[in-house]
């Protein structure tokens, strides 16, 4: 079974998801994991699909790209299965005045502590910059990591919080 990594991005308009999903369904490509969102007026899709060959999908998406100012890329990837978790899930929230290097500096602190970022989004609105990251941390590092995050945040002039995202099993 082919596994494909597909990205589609273009100026937002109604119907992008339906159009792209229809093309994929028509080819027998099964849309598995995906994330789709609007970023500053552009609609961005990152999809993992299983099914046909990459060239076939690329050809089928080409008319959409030609008509609708969409940019689509398709490439075959190797299914690696699930990556085992590094540790416990946390959410890091950063907010403050926009400046260069906030994501770079804050995620470097996470990585240096053995953390693995599994999900991250940023939003810039006016002068306010917001970073939200899901991160897996090795057991026992959170307390010392919080100090390092605060020091780095202070250097950048932003605020940071780190809180456990452990779910309650009901």
């Amino acid at each position, binding site marked *: 079974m082919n596994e494909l990594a597909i990205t589609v991005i273009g100026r937002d308009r109604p119907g992008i998801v339906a159009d792209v999903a229809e093309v994929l369904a028509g080819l027998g490509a099964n849309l598995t994991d995906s*994330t*789709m*969102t609007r970023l500053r007026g552009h609609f961005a899709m990152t999809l993992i699909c299983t099914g046909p060959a990459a060239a076939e999908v690329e050809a089928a998406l080409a008319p959409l790209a030609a008509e609708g100012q969409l940019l689509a890329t398709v490439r075959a990837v190797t299914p690696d299965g*699930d990556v085992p*978790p590094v540790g*416990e*899930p946390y959410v890091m929230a950063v907010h403050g005045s926009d400046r260069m290097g906030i994501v770079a500096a804050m995620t470097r602190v996470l990585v240096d502590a053995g953390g693995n970022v*599994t*999900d991250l*989004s940023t939003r810039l609105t006016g002068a306010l910059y917001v970073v939200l990251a*899901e991160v*897996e941390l090795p057991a026992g590092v959170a307390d010392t990591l919080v100090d390092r995050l605060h020091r780095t945040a202070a250097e950048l002039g932003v605020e940071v919080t780190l809180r456990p*995202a*452990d*779910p*309650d*099993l*009901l």
Partner: protein
Amino acid sequence: MTGEERGPDVGLGDWTPESLDVPGEVRVVVSAPNPVLSQAADEVDPTAKETVQLAADLIATMRVSPGCVGLAAPQVGVGARVFAVDVTGHPKAVTVHGTFVLCNARVVEATRWKPGREGCMSVPDLTGDVKRASRLVVEGDLPGSGAPVRLVTDGFEARALQHEIDHCAGLLFLDRVAGAHAVYQRKVYL
């Protein structure tokens, strides 16, 4: 509104699982997309023999499942409005009513909505952010005697009750998540 204004608990009294007077058997917990989890369950006769057995089985199954603080009949494949709850010892629990089973339970008051991340034994690989009332009044019937019960609770026990009442209505936490990016791969297993 305070707990006093809502009125006190009525009817749970000294109820314990032992009052069911039947041994519970551990049942198999079913996972989504099993259709039984998506159907509104039927009201039950709380005094019927099969309801009493089901109540005992839910408690037995809940007790052998690590970290489980609640289990509804649809989760063991039975479309009946019956669930067990026990949040004893949970760090987030404030009000705790111990182990109990309710039949035909319904929410009569829900206030102070708060978000929280939930996992479910029937959706083992995902978690999601769900807003639930942190002050809750629930009415239902006790299995065995059929006595009516009114529970006033809060915090984590309130969340557990809403999650189980949803199961009886054919709803999973997935039906209540806060948005398109509010579902996550579950990373820690008990």
